């Protein structure tokens, strides 16, 4: 029961759902089929009907998308090296969609000054998402070979 009320809260707290509140169309990305799934929601934000998903996995995906859509964030952060000005990074786990822009603003302030290897943590727990930003390539430091 508690689990259920929590998920309802998440649905209700997602800004986009409130905006459309009665009907949501979610395109499933599970396979090339790309089902357009129509979901209707009750006043309390609970799912009343779900139409158009060809498979169970699609239904699961759509419910997750409505509850708490997650995305892996990839970006770059600045280094102090003119010849290698940007270090590519990724989030260590998918983060809520609503945090993408706030995390980008945080990455804009980062400057990398010392050598890093792919997988090294560049920033911890960005915007309280519990995800770290990880370097996705090696950088041998300023004046190095990149």
């Amino acid at each position, binding site marked *: 029961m508690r689990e259920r009320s929590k998920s309802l809260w998440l649905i209700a707290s997602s800004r986009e759902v409130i905006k459309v509140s009665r009907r949501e169309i979610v*395109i499933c990305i599970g396979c090339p089929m790309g089902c357009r799934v129509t979901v209707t929601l009750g006043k309390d934000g609970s799912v009343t009907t779900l139409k158009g998903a060809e498979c169970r996995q699609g239904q699961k995906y759509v419910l997750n998308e409505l509850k708490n859509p997650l995305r*892996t964030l*990839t970006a*770059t952060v600045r280094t102090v090296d003119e010849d290698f000005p940007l270090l*590519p990074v*990724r989030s260590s786990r998918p983060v809520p969609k609503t945090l993408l822009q706030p995390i*980008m603003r945080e990455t804009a302030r980062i400057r990398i000054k010392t050598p890093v290897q792919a997988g090294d943590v560049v920033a911890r727990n960005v915007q309280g998402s519990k995800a770290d930003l990880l370097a996705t390539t*090696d950088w041998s430091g300023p004046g190095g070979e990149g």
Partner: protein
Amino acid sequence: MVSKVDVAVIGAGPAGLAAAISARERGAERVIIIERAERLGGLLPQCVHNGFGLLYFEKDMTGPEYEKAFVDKANSLKVEFMLETMVIDLNEEGMLTVVNRQQGYKKIKPGAIVLAMGCRERPRGALGIPGERPAGIFTAGTCQRFVNVEGFMPGSRYVVLGSGDIGMIMARRLTLEGAKVEAVVEIMPWPGGLIRNEVQCLHDFGIRLLLEHTITFIHGKRRIKGVTVAKVDRDLRPIKGTERFFPCDCLLISAGLIPENELSKKAGIELDLVTGGPVVDQNRQTSVPGIFAGGNVVQVHDLVDWVSWEAELAGAAAASYADKGKIKRADQIRMVAGENIKYVVPQYISGKDDVTLHLRVSRPGLRANLKVGNILSKRFRSVRPSEMIILDIKAEKLRDARTLKELVVDCKLEGGD
């Protein structure tokens, strides 16, 4: 002076790296990759987004991570590299002419060659858009290099022409970097890239996708000021009265990729007019014996995983060619693109071995029935030109077809468009 190597690979992108690794693993002693850029990886370093390696490594990787996995392996197998080296000629005998700063002009006669030159973006000039000739028009991949590698934004307000994957990925990237993407304009009734990119790059950020629209005029004397966009009819002609003006300071073009085959032409290799790449058999041998090809130089793939897969085939075959001095041509059966099929690769198969076909449909639709001659039929709930179909055929299925000269592949749509 002519140097001797077993297998020479042209291009150090994902295809070249995979081909070289595979050639070494199949026993080729000296494998050398010739690359014109100053570093390895081809386009991978600038593809900072994820979605790579899902099939090959069963892991969601970014471009740089995927690249590192292959570069590390190539290094551990002692693949040799010639960087900042341009192949300026390739002839029918498989003689390469290369130039670089250290060695100047040099000829190489390898035991076998793998073409892994990848592809190029279709530029503005190839599209014939009317209008001015201002600054601020880039291909999506060029912009990707500026933003992800060199570290500057070429503009702040964008329109993207074409909905190829790179265009959609750049629309997201630019939005995340604080720019405004006014619209992605696609002339066809369906998007040019993968569904996951349409959803995660456009829908996620509320970026407009205008299907059945095209740019009819580019405005701006020195710098681009905006574009006129119009709806098109069924024959893809702009409809009068539907024009709209979109202000922008940058126009990105993501209107298709073209396999790069200037060298293949010099060697007299037969090209497929539809794929734009060499006609190959199932071992990825081209019409010139000893010259193999794999990756986007053969056909433009959706996923890098398949680029690596195809290049591995080419690399392995090149290694055995270099070893034995020949390899049996697998050209007994010609694969023919029939109804609603744009192309089939490989164009030739032996009919004796298991084979994997790569093909694309011409039109999208629901409930499709794909048929390979009368030896195989497979149902698909949905087919789209932007999603390549991969079809495995077992050798025993081909047994009946062995007496045939050709096999026609059809894809009938039963559910309509």
